[in-house]
């Protein structure tokens, strides 16, 4: 390891002994070489360091928002008040496919239950298990496919040139949402003349409506490590940090176990590898904010340029790729670019009003209609495509839309990481929009002015809209300020869902 110990793991260690004291934080800061102020900033930024005592938290995500969020929350507040326990909400845990979810937090420890209903809350109040534990996603949530089956044996490293050429020939793109050609990033990091380089696996899947990375990390982590190791060898990196979303504690264990297993096989020889528990915030999925959080700072997006390929983790050239992307890279290496291109696999997280919510491997270009049919959608009226940072598609207008990189983009949409949240005509899409805008206001890091100040106002405008006080001109103006003015994708994408609702559905709601 060429860097000093990392702050967040040190704080997590201290947290196991009880609430953090300034002395713990100062000691952790000294060990990392960070100013105490920076460590304090981290403590005040990441929610888990503020946790004390017991809290009952309803998981807030778009699907539950479209259903019984308000009544569940009311019920939760009622039982919690009676029990003298603090209550509230917490954002998406990647459990949209299972139904409403509840988090019981006790100091640094958390138990997660899904699905839950009002009866579950009564059980919780009575001191019983409120519902099925949801520490891991059920394996059977996924159907078949290259990514969803047991992986092939890790392939031999074919050499940097060949791997990068294969990625290019395969048409492999970044699958965390931005769809940047993978070979370009590999090439850019490889081209850097530096003694130290890093590969960072972005397993911070915080986009509500997405849970395919969670499934991969829990049920096929070896494939991801395989891809990461290949990428590290291709770019000349000596260290891999696998960043797992803070809330995905089960996934963290599975990823770590896979690392040990693969390391024991010798496949990771010559590489420093570690699993890193993420900060537990949506912004941590933004690649530069993610790097900041590994460095022990507030997870705030950096200005670009420089890009991580030039100056990433600790200022060194860094390849940051999403979990699914690296799994695909492993498959390209195993099956060859031609076979991969033939198949064009992509994972989709499908939830909401479908018979079989879950993770689906579909070929890119599958139409929306086909995808919905695969999951057993009935009378779908709308699909929130991509996630909270996505757009509402209207059905049946969009039924024939091919789910690939290009076609949605041509009409101002994107598959993003691959989420489809399906809503039938009984659902209040403005309730979903209200939840989404509350989510962005909550998750804004506080760095740039348009996002930190604009997202709460977006939420209030949507809240008012839902209650009959409609200011479309302000909504449009704010949407534009957020999209054009914000520093990172969080703020830029915050208004997309609301705006698509305005553009595509507003007459329905009048």
């Amino acid at each position, binding site marked *: 390891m060429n860097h000093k110990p990392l702050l967040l793991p040190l704080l997590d260690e201290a947290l196991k002994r009880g609430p953090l004291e300034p002395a713990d934080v100062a000691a952790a800061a000294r060990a990392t070489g960070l100013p105490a102020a920076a460590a304090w900033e981290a403590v005040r930024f990441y929610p888990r360091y503020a946790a004390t005592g017991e809290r009952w938290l309803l998981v807030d995500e778009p699907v539950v928002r479209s259903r019984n969020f308000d009544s569940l929350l009311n019920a939760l507040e009622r039982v919690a008040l009676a029990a003298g326990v603090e209550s509230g909400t917490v954002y998406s845990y990647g459990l949209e496919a299972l139904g409403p979810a509840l988090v019981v937090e006790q100091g640094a420890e958390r138990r997660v239950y899904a699905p839950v209903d009002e009866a579950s809350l009564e059980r919780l109040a009575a001191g019983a298990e409120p519902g099925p534990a949801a520490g891991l996603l059920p394996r059977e949530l996924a159907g078949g496919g290259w990514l969803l089956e047991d992986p092939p044996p890790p392939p031999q490293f074919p050499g940097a040139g060949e791997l990068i050429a294969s990625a290019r020939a395969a048409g492999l793109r970044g699958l965390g949402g931005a769809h940047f050609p993978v070979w370009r990033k590999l090439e850019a990091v490889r081209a850097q003349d530096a003694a130290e380089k890093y590969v960072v696996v972005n397993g911070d899947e915080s986009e509500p409506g997405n849970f395919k990375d969670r499934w991969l990390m829990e049920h096929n982590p070896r494939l991801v490590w395989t891809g990461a190791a290949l990428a590290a060898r291709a770019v000349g990196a000596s260290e891999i940090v696998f960043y797992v979303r803070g809330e995905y504690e089960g996934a963290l264990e599975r990823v770590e176990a896979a690392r040990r297993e693969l390391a024991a096989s010798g496949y990771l020889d010559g590489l420093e590898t570690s699993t890193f528990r993420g900060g537990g915030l949506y912004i941590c999925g933004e690649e530069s904010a993610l790097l900041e959080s590994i460095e022990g700072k507030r997870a705030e997006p950096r*200005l670009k340029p420089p890009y991580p390929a030039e100056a990433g983790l600790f200022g060194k050239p860094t390849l940051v790729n999403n979990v699914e992307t690296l799994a695909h890279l492993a498959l390209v290496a195993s099956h060859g670019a031609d076979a991969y291109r033939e198949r064009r696999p992509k994972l989709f997280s499908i939830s909401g009003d479908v018979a079989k919510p879950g993770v689906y491997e579909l070929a890119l270009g599958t139409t929306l209609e086909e995808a919905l049919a695969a999951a057993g959608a009935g009378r779908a009226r709308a699909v929130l495509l991509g996630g909270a940072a996505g757009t509402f598609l209207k059905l049946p207008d969009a039924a024939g839309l091919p789910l690939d990189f290009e076609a949605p983009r041509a009409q101002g949409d994107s598959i993003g990481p691959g989420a489809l949240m399906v809503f039938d005509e009984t659902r209040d899409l403005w309730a979903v929009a209200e939840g989404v805008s509350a989510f962005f206001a909550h998750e804004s*890091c506080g760095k740039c002015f348009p996002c930190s100040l604009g997202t709460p106002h977006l939420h209030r405008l949507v809240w008012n809209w839902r209650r009959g006080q409609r200011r479309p001109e302000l909504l449009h103006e704010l949407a534009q300020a957020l999209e054009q003015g914000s520093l990172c994708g969080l703020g830029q994408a915050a208004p997309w869902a609301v705006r698509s609702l305005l553009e595509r559905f507003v007459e329905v709601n009048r």
Partner: protein
Amino acid sequence: MSRVAVVIDGLLVQAEPDWTVLEAARSAGVEIPTLCHHERTGTEGICRLCMVEVAGRMEPACATRVRPGMVVNTRGAAVEQLRRTVLELVALETNVEYDDELSGWMEEYGADPTRWGEPLAGRRQRKPLADNPFFVREYDKCYNCRRCLDACGEGIQGVWALAFTGRGAEAGVTTTFDLELAEAGCIFCGNCVEVCPTGALVPLEELRAAKGGPS
């Protein structure tokens, strides 16, 4: 090193290669408003008021280096609307009564914060903090430009007595471990007061004098 030719609002500007768009614009007498940028601090790209159009994209002038052949529009309709919205939200949420520069821009861009209703961020309710003999911190007037943080830490002093806390609209400036300034390692150089654009950090002497009494 040879100069870089860029066009800013139709003016040909010969910029030094390491200049930002903001520097190039200023050299040509083109004013671009900024709240977070300061020549002595490393703060940049935070307030987003200096966004300009470059080839149809918005870029922060204070954090964007000049590139040969760059064509910059500092006053397009989209730019002006963005600035107006940001100014309105800042002025709505923050007590900016002593920030004359910002007030000037509010007028210039026709900003009317009342369009957005009541404030949401809770900033205006913050109480003054007077924990030392030299200056007072009135964070109702702070819009998080972070110049003070940089002056205290990386940019000038290397002391890191100040720290940033919280997220989103609730975020703000605190001290290390939320201690009183002296306990947090402050050496009262006042370089934070120096770079503060809003008057949130104000010399005690000035407050006393403004209240009319002798010190």
